[in-house]
């Protein structure tokens, strides 16, 4: 039976330390350059509208990583899980970026409040008056209630993420088991709030880009992608930290194996949800619903849809199936990186047809803004976690996570 070397765990590096300023500097630099490049491309010909859509896609992407992190933390406490204590903090840190993501959301909110229909057609008062269907939805889809909802979402996300992060870091000092009980106690209401806010946020941010279209499963769809994105991010983050000598003993192959299993499960779950949505709309064949997929399978979008079908589901499914793939870190890293890219393809496929419904308008800035925004997210994660231990050192279930192994 393999034993974690507790002495090594006790003595190893657990803080970002001098790595933090480096990561923050590089990621922030990349982030600013990435997002700024979008502005430049917009100015030299791609147009602001393209930039807006690119930006929205990139924002929806990083938001999903943060929300995925929140889910990982909340569900851990809800189920009183033991195995993932060692890999929990990345979830807390990702979620703790949420208050700051509000700043990144401001440009989108600004466009809506300015009454511009460039991004959301419904935000244009003229459209809201003349388009019959949008007129009927105006009590929900109008700039004021959109703004109020998003403020509410961010307040709820801030409260939840700060709570779990603060209590957890507090426990690093005090080791008080009562904190664990408190987090477990509040995890259930947090989960309810998480489910509702994520659902309505995805309706607002993504579904209402095509304000005529609707799908009841859409919130679950965004959720499944968010968890895929976060788990991939978490796997890569721990590999990165270990490469720099942090948590080399505490995070073992067993934890990667389990993160890999969850990633596999959510790849499957995403496929299940995506299939449910597609098949039911295809089969029902009602024009007001099929139009959404009609756009997404005509012209070059058909190619993107195929990439998604294979890249997000049919290829990684067998790829992550075997035990070997989840325990060989190189292979797991490959799939995690692959899924992070595919998750963006998924978001891109949701957002961009609203910009151009015939041709996937792939522009360099779709990549640079995405990389930029993700870098900003990484910088935020590093900044939030610059002082704290990356291992919940005094969590009462830490020993369980360290002793844990897959049979």
């Amino acid at each position, binding site marked *: 039976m393999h034993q974690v070397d507790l002495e090594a765990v006790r003595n190893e590096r657990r803080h970002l330390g001098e790595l933090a300023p480096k990561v923050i500097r590089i990621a922030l630099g990349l982030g600013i350059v990435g997002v700024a490049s979008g502005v430049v491309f917009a100015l030299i010909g791609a147009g602001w509208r393209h930039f807006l859509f690119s930006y929205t896609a990139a924002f929806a992407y990083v938001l999903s990583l943060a929300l995925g992190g929140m889910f990982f933390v909340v569900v851990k406490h809800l189920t009183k899980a033991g195995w993932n204590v060692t890999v929990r903090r990345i979830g807390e840190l990702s979620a703790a970026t949420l208050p700051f993501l509000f700043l990144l959301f401001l440009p989108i909110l600004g466009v809506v409040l300015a009454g511009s229909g460039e991004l959301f057609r419904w935000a244009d008062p003229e459209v809201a008056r003349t388009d019959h269907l949008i007129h009927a939805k105006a009590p929900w889809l109008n700039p004021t209630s959109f703004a109020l909802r998003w403020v509410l979402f961010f307040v709820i996300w801030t409260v939840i993420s700060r709570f779990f992060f603060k209590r957890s870091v507090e426990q690093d000092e005090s080791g008080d088991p009562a904190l664990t009980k408190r987090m477990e106690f509040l995890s259930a209401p947090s989960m309810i709030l998480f489910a509702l806010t994520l659902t309505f946020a995805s309706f607002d941010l993504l579904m209402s880009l095509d304000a005529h279209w609707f799908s*009841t499963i859409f919130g679950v769809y965004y959720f499944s992608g968010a968890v895929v994105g976060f788990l991939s991010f978490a796997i890569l983050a721990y590999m990165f930290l270990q490469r720099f000598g942090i948590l080399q003993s505490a995070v073992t192959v067993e934890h990667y194996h389990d993160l890999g299993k969850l990633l596999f499960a959510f790849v499957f779950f995403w496929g299940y949800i995506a299939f449910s949505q597609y098949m039911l709309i295809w089969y029902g064949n009602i024009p007001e619903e099929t139009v959404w997929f009609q756009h997404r399978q005509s012209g070059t979008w058909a190619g993107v849809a195929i990439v998604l079908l294979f890249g997000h589901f049919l290829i990684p499914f067998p790829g992550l199936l075997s035990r070997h793939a989840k325990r060989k870190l190189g292979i797991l890293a490959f799939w995690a990186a692959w899924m992070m890219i595919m998750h963006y393809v998924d978001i891109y496929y949701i957002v961009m047809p609203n910009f151009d419904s015939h041709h996937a308008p792939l522009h360099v800035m779709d990549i640079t803004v995405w990389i930029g925004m993700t870098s900003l997210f990484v910088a935020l994660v590093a900044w939030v976690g610059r002082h704290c231990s990356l291992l919940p050192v005094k969590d009462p279930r830490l020993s369980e996570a360290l*002793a*844990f192994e897959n*049979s």
Partner: protein
Amino acid sequence: MSSEITTTAEFLSDDPVKRAPLVDPRLDYHSVTETVSAIAERPKPPKAWYAAFAVALSLTLMLFALIGYLIVEGVGVWGNNNPAFWGFPIVNFVFWVGIGHAGTLISAILFLFRQKWRTSINRFAEAMTIFAVVCAGLFPGIHVGRIWFAYWLFPVPNQMEMWPNFRSPLLWDVFAVGTYATVSLLFWYFGMIPDLATLRDRARSRLSKILYGVFSLGWTGSAREWHRYERSYLILAALATPLVLSVHSVVSFDFAVAQLPGWHTTIFPPYFVAGAIFSGFAMVQTLMVPARRFFGLEKIVTMRHIENMNKVILATGSMVGYAYGIEFFIAWYSGNPNESFVFLNRAFGPYAWAYWIMVSCNVIFPQLFWFKKIRRNLLITMVIVMLVNVGMWFERFVIVVTSLSRDFVPASWGYFKPTAVDLLMLLGSFGLFFTLFLLFLRFLPIVAMAEVKGVMPHDHGPKEKGAPESAGGER
């Protein structure tokens, strides 16, 4: 082990520093074997068993008599009529398939999630699953009208070159439910082999020696056998996991592929799955709470198990509530007047009574499980899970009947009324379910003894401070 853990408070402790034992620590391997085997071994079952069996068997006989009547007279004996051609039989089918989801969830998904508390209840739940699927399979079979052609459901090569319509989700149901029944049965039986061998080894009468002997497939309990057994159990669990999602998803397709408002909505598959697990756990609880008292299983199926199941009921009930809410919201948001009409009609139309039974039983009452005191109160638990059973039947009734009885053309609206045959057949299906279940209680090991022993504290476990006795791998 420690005899000092005797009070309920310690036993049910949520202390994060140390995991509470999964079964009562006063039990040892021997007493587990004795407690469970004794149920199947007593020469005569208690009188109450006979009484229950008599009732259940009579209801079953009534069910089969009614089926005979149905075949002779035709489906006109049911209330199904224009415009609601799908009435009780489909409602009952979906209801029973839903009930049959707890078993596989517990044996497959909770297994993969290393939820070791499942060992005390999995056998029970798996058995219930099989019997529920039997009841479910009955209804579409007799619904075809000309029952002697029921085999046409299967793609049997035939000289008429007649094939089932592969594009119909009703056919997918045949495969989905068929696969599910097969795998659940295998899983149940497979898990039972070591325990059947225990009963065989302890058997006194010649007949039980032979029968348990045949069905335990020569199990000796050697290390090699255990090794292969556990590997194959893991593989079966992995194979059964997608089935938990697939069956009720396909059942939901029966409705959701149609263009009928109230049926055609994309959230149906995960919503049906959550509802199925919800109703399945409610039924496990309905049977488990009395059974553990009756057979003295309180040390194996502890208050912790009851509480955990109540938590699962609360969680899945909330998912169902989420789906109701989102459906309602999107019905308005879609801007489709037919959609909004159907939902308003459900809540305030002629079937409002059924709708509010559904909402209160499935969404409102289970919220009481937020309180620990109620989760641990057997009486209130029984009341709530009974209400859930009722509510989940009504959910299917609301979905099937409200959408059909008032569709696009007001001139063709109607009001569905069940006939006496409808009601008695529903009652009869419970008779069939309980008949099978009572036989299971009488003759088979109703708790997975070998698995329970696997999660009991033993001497060679990891000794690290703070680590629970059962920390480690899957099994």
